[in-house]
């Protein structure tokens, strides 16, 4: 129902406003004396070298991709689970097939070593 979403919208506003207000209040209460040495990047006591935003390795991308595939899969499975009580055995077997195909994908990723963290 629409009023549900209005309630959640209100909740989003309040949940963001409360910590924001607290952070602002704490900023007013606390001291504010920045200087260029204090504000330097902390790196275990040595000066930082080079750019922060550097290239990362492909492993992160593969994990995110495998996650995305399984996320979309479960999205398909949720309405199926809600309808479960009304389904025949055929419907359950269809979803089993769906899961098995994806399990095959997981097996491929596993065998290829895409799931190793190196």
């Amino acid at each position, binding site marked *: 129902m629409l009023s*549900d979403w*209005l*309630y*959640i919208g*209100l*909740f*989003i506003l*309040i*949940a*963001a406003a*409360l*910590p*924001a207000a*607290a*952070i602002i209040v*704490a900023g007013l*209460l*606390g001291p*504010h*004396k*920045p200087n*260029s040495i204090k*504000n*330097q*990047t*902390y*790196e*275990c006591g040595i000066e*930082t070298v080079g750019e*922060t*935003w550097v290239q*990362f390795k492909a492993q*992160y991308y593969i*994990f995110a991709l*495998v*996650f995305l595939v*399984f*996320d979309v899969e479960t*999205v398909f*499975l*949720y309405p199926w*689970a*809600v309808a*479960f*009580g009304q389904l025949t*055995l055929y419907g*359950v077997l269809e*979803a*089993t097939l769906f*899961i098995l195909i*994806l*399990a095959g994908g*997981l097996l491929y*990723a*596993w065998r290829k*070593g895409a*799931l*190793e*963290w*190196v």
Partner: protein
Amino acid sequence: MNFWNDPVNFIGQWLGGLLSGLGLAPSLVNFLLSLLGVLVLAMGSLLFTIFLIWYERKILGRIQDRLGPNRVGPFGLIQPIADMMKIFTKEYITPIGADWLPYNLAPIMAVASVLLLYAVIPFGNRMVGVDLNVGVLYLVAIGGFGILAIVMAGWSSNNKYALLGAFRVIALLVSYEVPMVLALLVPVLLSGSMGMSAIVQAQAGGFWYLFVAPLAALVFFLSSIAEVGRAPFDLIEAESEIVAGFNIEYSGLKFGFFYVAEFLHSFTVSVIFATVFLGGWQGPGAATYPLLGFVYFIVKAWIVYFVLLLFRGSLPRFRIDQMMDLNWKVLTPLSLSLVVVIALVDKLLANVSLLVRGIGLLSSSLVVGFVAVEIMRQAGAKRRREVAPAFEHREAASGSAPVQPGSGGGL
């Protein structure tokens, strides 16, 4: 309607009558009532965190044979309030080159993403913020904002450790979302609804999903510990590896809010576990007296939270590759096969009595669990045999010869 049978609506109607008496329009009255409800819920959970911090420090102290906080107030109860007052007067230090808006938005979003979870939790019969018909997926969706807060914090701090820590953690968090979502599929499948209240109603009469599908509960529990970033999965704040991770450049209350978000989140996952697997507010007499149900609910959530603290107090941290292996090679295949087995067993036993069906589901879960443990045991033994010769070789050559690495692959 009487207060003891329906406290929230009773107070709502009373306040509504009071406000209408002041001559306000009905829509404005409704808006003010919702606003009040949201404020009570959000403020209540934020203030509750203060108590949680005391409780956790006390329990951890006891586990480590210390007293924990015991100086300020009786049993040290005032300690977190003193800490809070201190953190409010701390200076904010913003690193050079930080990205102002994401940097400041991240702690707010971290807290908001936890507070928002409480919008759909049923605290008792007819005591729920909003009974969304997609409640379970709503919880998953809000969890995504928590991940986003970590991305923003790590990126905007202009610090290599923060960025590295953030990306490591995100890879972990998104990975553990897979078994968590699959484990949540089981209660949805058994209750036939994604609404949190409907899931609680379906567990009436002691038909708790912890008993019916213990394996799903275990997978959910483990992956939600990982989502919260608690030991043994506390790579979020691996001090010895990446200094502190994504929140290294935060100070004062901005850091404090990441801390608050973590503490509140770990209680919140206990609350969700109690709702989904322990029957929520169900208990003798809880349907007619919602406040009694509220007490049951808090007690159940508290027990889960205590187990979580025992985990934290007693287990060492996993390595990141071990965590990834646990997720992708154990929990994900396990939860996938669990969903299939439970769906098939439940459909085949559709026409028998509830008790027989429950026993059938329980035994199928146990069989799956036993097979999984057996496979893991054999794979582990095989892996140890592969690694063992390399160690013997190294000892024989007293470290001078290069070590032959075990032929990788497998578990």
